[in-house]
């Protein structure tokens, strides 16, 4: 068992189908008689629809139907988190209709849906729709949106403010600042990103008019939540009439968590046209319709004593919401961001104020890491600035302020209680890996070659396994978060596991099977993992926030415990022993102190063909568990980047990138490393290449395709050196001791790189992305006499 159990780098069972072209992604599915939907989208960032005439288009070849907002007056797409203003009032919550009602509020807003026999015909016909727009002034940047006379995105959100929220003790922070030896200050931007999962979003809506059943195939990270939101709020269909299937999904990174208009539109329209309707986004369409990420502007101040001990932190952030509130949007810059501002440090008092702002841009929501990368970036940048101000080594100042292993559980001043951690251990490992001490020599050597070398480190922490229902409820979530699992042991001993987690690249079919095979002592081949279908699985909250193994995996363990307990009852009956004397080990139920035993197969077969059971023993061997953890999990780590800049071109080359993480207990090291690699690539992408830009005047998206949004390619990235901490600290409140690893790379990498680049350039700060142009300009500015500034 050892080679397939917990801790083994089992090769992924899902790979065979992906490698041979037999994956089953939503656009690969074709339903009999299917027709195709094309969304006509607004070319304006803000406009009133004066006239919308579909007559000519409806006569175009192949057109089956055209619907507009006038036809589809359903519920709006709901926002899942309610944030309260500082004064206790509720946030502004404007409606989010699936098809525009009189106004459009961002480029890409859906105006009409054309349904035709082929994709091309639907697209052709959309060209013939006559829309008369009255363009209105638009606002896209945070700085502009909060100006006194800024154009208003929503009448009901005065000053474009969605909410003005705060956490922490402002009076205590002010008092600490008044007594501080030194205050470091920084203004920084966390640039807007596009998630860009390689599989564009797609949806197929289907309706059976005899049974009244709806089926939606969709590219979702959480099909049950889509069913809940669409059933309860948007279309008001009873759950048992609506099946949501998220088959193979080609990456998500957050952008496929949310309930999108297109899913509601194809499901709503299916009975009207009497045929299945497929919609697949083109990439340029994804750029203007998938929720985007990050987009913060922050002013931060850190107060220190004369030894470099942190006394207090003050943070003021503007967070862009875009034009509508996407499903998770409001919780990202508040509960997922500000609650992590303690980082790995003992800063005694913290105050953070977050203002969420509407703009005429694509909605912003969680993107890999969600709030945690923003918190880590700002904290690890201001710590470096403080080290620079006080002329201390960046590693030393961090060490001085780390929460020590003896201090856990550690209550931060911003709501969270960390259960375990050893920050110094991950720092030590990373510094050793990169030979931190030898840097000065390498810098000198690089200088001889005309290159500017820099080193930068970042120590991150993340709150993963998003769930504790009580906690998220107290933070404004309108639903509790948990996970479910159902274990069905079949008569001959093979096992189907029905999990509410959703795999879209994370390898659950392998990792979860390892856990089950390990616990039940059966070959991994006997375990089947079923996910992504509300028709098969009781309920699920899906996959995001690195919650799959910590929450979903634990639900599986809880269900397995019940299976084993039931197995003991059956074994006791079969071997005529007392239930209390049955021991389960290595796949066998034995009577303690005897050589009598039964295998799981003996038990399961008997479970389904009983003829002499006692009255109180039910046939069958199938158990279900819902697991709601007591706390988040807190993975942490240290990343160090070493870069070389060519001063003539501004091109930055990553010479080495080392990652030392503490994910607690690890189920499959190979998969965990792969998750870190992917996260690092996205973090490095943010730091050096990616930037989602809008034209300030027109609100047009300037980076609307892969031609102009710079996606990291193979030769933009180095090979990574990844190590799990030598001293992992397992999570204390889940039985697996696991913490989650999917977002770590994206959280820690931007700060490490920007610290390295600032270090190389000898400056306090440079905003991301550090493109060659931006770096080159910085170098040129340094060459200029001071007076020219």
């Amino acid at each position, binding site marked *: 068992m050892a080679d397939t159990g917990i801790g083994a780098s089992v090769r992924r069972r899902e790979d065979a189908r992906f490698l041979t072209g037999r994956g089953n992604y939503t656009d690969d599915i074709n339903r009999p008689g299917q027709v195709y939907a094309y969304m006509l989208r607004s070319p304006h960032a803000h406009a009133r629809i004066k006239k919308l005439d579909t007559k000519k288009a409806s006569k175009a070849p192949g057109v089956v139907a055209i619907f507009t907002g006038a036809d589809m007056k359903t519920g709006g797409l709901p926002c899942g988190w309610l944030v309260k203003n500082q004064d206790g009032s509720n946030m502004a919550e404007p409606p989010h209709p699936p098809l525009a009602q009189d106004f459009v509020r961002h480029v890409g807003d859906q105006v009409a849906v054309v349904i035709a026999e082929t994709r091309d015909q639907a697209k052709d016909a959309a060209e013939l729709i006559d829309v008369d727009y009255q363009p209105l002034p638009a606002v896209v940047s945070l700085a502009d949106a909060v100006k006194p006379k800024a154009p208003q995105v929503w009448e009901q959100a005065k000053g474009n403010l969605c909410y003005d929220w705060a956490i922490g003790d402002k009076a205590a922070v002010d008092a600490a600042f008044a007594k501080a030896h030194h205050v470091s200050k920084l203004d920084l931007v966390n640039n807007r990103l596009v998630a860009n999962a390689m599989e564009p979003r797609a949806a197929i809506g289907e309706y059976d008019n005899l049974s009244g059943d709806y089926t939606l195939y969709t590219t979702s990270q959480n099909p049950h939540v889509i069913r809940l939101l669409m059933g309860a709020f948007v279309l008001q269909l009873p759950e048992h009439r609506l099946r949501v299937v998220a088959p*193979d999904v080609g990456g998500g990174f957050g952008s496929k968590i949310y309930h999108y208009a297109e899913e509601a539109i194809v499901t709503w329209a299916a009975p009207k046209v009497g045929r299945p309707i497929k919609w697949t986004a083109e990439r340029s369409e994804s750029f203007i319709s998938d929720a985007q990420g990050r987009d913060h502007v922050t002013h931060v101040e850190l107060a220190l004593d004369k030894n470099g001990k942190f006394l207090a932190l003050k943070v003021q952030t503007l967070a862009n919401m875009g034009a509508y509130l996407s499903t998770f949007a409001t919780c990202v810059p508040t509960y997922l961001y500000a609650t992590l501002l303690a980082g790995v440090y003992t800063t005694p008092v913290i105050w953070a104020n977050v203002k969420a702002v509407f703009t005429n841009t694509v909605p912003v929501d969680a993107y890999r890491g969600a709030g945690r990368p923003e918190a880590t970036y700002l904290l690890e940048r201001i710590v470096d600035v403080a080290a620079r101000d006080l002329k201390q080594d960046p590693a030393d100042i961090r060490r001085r302020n780390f929460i020590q292993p003896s201090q856990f559980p550690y209550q931060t001043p911003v709501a969270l209680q960390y259960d375990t951690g050893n920050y110094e251990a991950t720092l030590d490992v990373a510094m050793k890996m990169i030979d931190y001490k030898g840097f000065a020599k390498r810098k000198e050597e690089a200088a001889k070659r005309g290159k500017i070398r820099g080193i930068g480190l970042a120590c991150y922490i993340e709150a993963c396994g998003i769930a504790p229902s009580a906690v998220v409820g107290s933070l404004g979530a309108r639903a509790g978060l948990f996970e479910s699992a159902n274990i069905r042991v079949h008569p001959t001993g093979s096992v189907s596991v029905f999990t509410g987690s959703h795999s879209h690249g994370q390898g659950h079919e392998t990792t979860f099977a390892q856990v089950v095979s390990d616990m039940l002592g059966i070959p991994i081949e006997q375990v089947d993992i079923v996910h992504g279908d509300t028709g098969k699985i009781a309920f699920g909250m899906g996959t995001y926030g690195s919650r799959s193994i910590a929450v979903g995996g634990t639900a599986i363990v809880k269900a397995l415990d019940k299976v084993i307990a039931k197995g003991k009852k059956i074994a006791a009956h079969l071997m005529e022993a007392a239930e209390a004397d049955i021991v389960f080990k290595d796949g066998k139920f034995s009577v303690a102190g005897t050589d009598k035993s039964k295998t799981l197969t003996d038990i399961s077969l008997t479970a389904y063909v009983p003829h002499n059971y006692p009255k109180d023993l039910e046939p069958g061997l199938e158990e279900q568990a819902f697991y709601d953890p007591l706390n988040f999990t807190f993975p942490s780590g240290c990343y160090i980047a070493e870069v070389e800049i060519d001063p003539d071109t501004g091109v930055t080359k990553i010479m080495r990138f080392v990652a030392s993480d503490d994910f607690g207990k690890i189920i499959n090291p190979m998969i965990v490393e792969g998750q870190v690699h992917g996260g690092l690539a996205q973090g490095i992408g943010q730091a050096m290449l990616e930037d989602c830009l809008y034209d300030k005047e027109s609100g047009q998206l300037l980076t609307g395709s892969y031609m102009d949004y710079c996606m990291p390619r193979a030769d933009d990235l180095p090979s990574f050196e990844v190590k799990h901490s030598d001293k992992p600290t397992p999570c204390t409140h889940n039985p697996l001791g696991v913490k989650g690893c999917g977002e770590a790379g994206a959280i820690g990498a931007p700060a490490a790189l920007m610290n390295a680049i600032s270090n190389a350039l000898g400056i306090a700060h440079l905003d991301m992305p550090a493109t060659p142009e931006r770096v080159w300009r910085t170098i040129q500015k340094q060459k200029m006499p001071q007076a020219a500034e």
Partner: protein
Amino acid sequence: MASINVAMTVNGKAASGTVEARTLLVQFLREKLGLTGTHVGCDTSQCGACVVHVNGKSVKSCTILAAQADGAKIITIEGLAKNGELHPMQAAFKEHHGLQCGFCTPGMVMSAVDLVQNNKNPSEQEVREWLEGNICRCTGYHNIVKAIQAGAKAMGR
């Protein structure tokens, strides 16, 4: 819209159909032949999820019309494994965890096989440069590069 008859050999079998003149090769493969292993990830020929072999060379099947492939020999990801055995490059991707969500994978594998046809023992840098036309969002390319180098070795055996 004008229609055109096209005929080609796909994965060793004759395939033909009537298509609109504007039909792309990838549309013909996916929609007419049901070979859905070839994916569409963008509309600007940047991502490489649709790479197939046309007359032995890797081509983005969204950059050519079905009509242009008339008479050609096409190999798609479905045609790579033989007799139920993974091609050495496919096996290397599995062994080295060179894929996660699997969406870019068919294009990656098809590109990689063509690279090795031209360069039997590519260096890390050569692999990274060759992959310029294939985007992966999951793996950070680290394991893809490892897989391709291992696949190249296995193909040489």
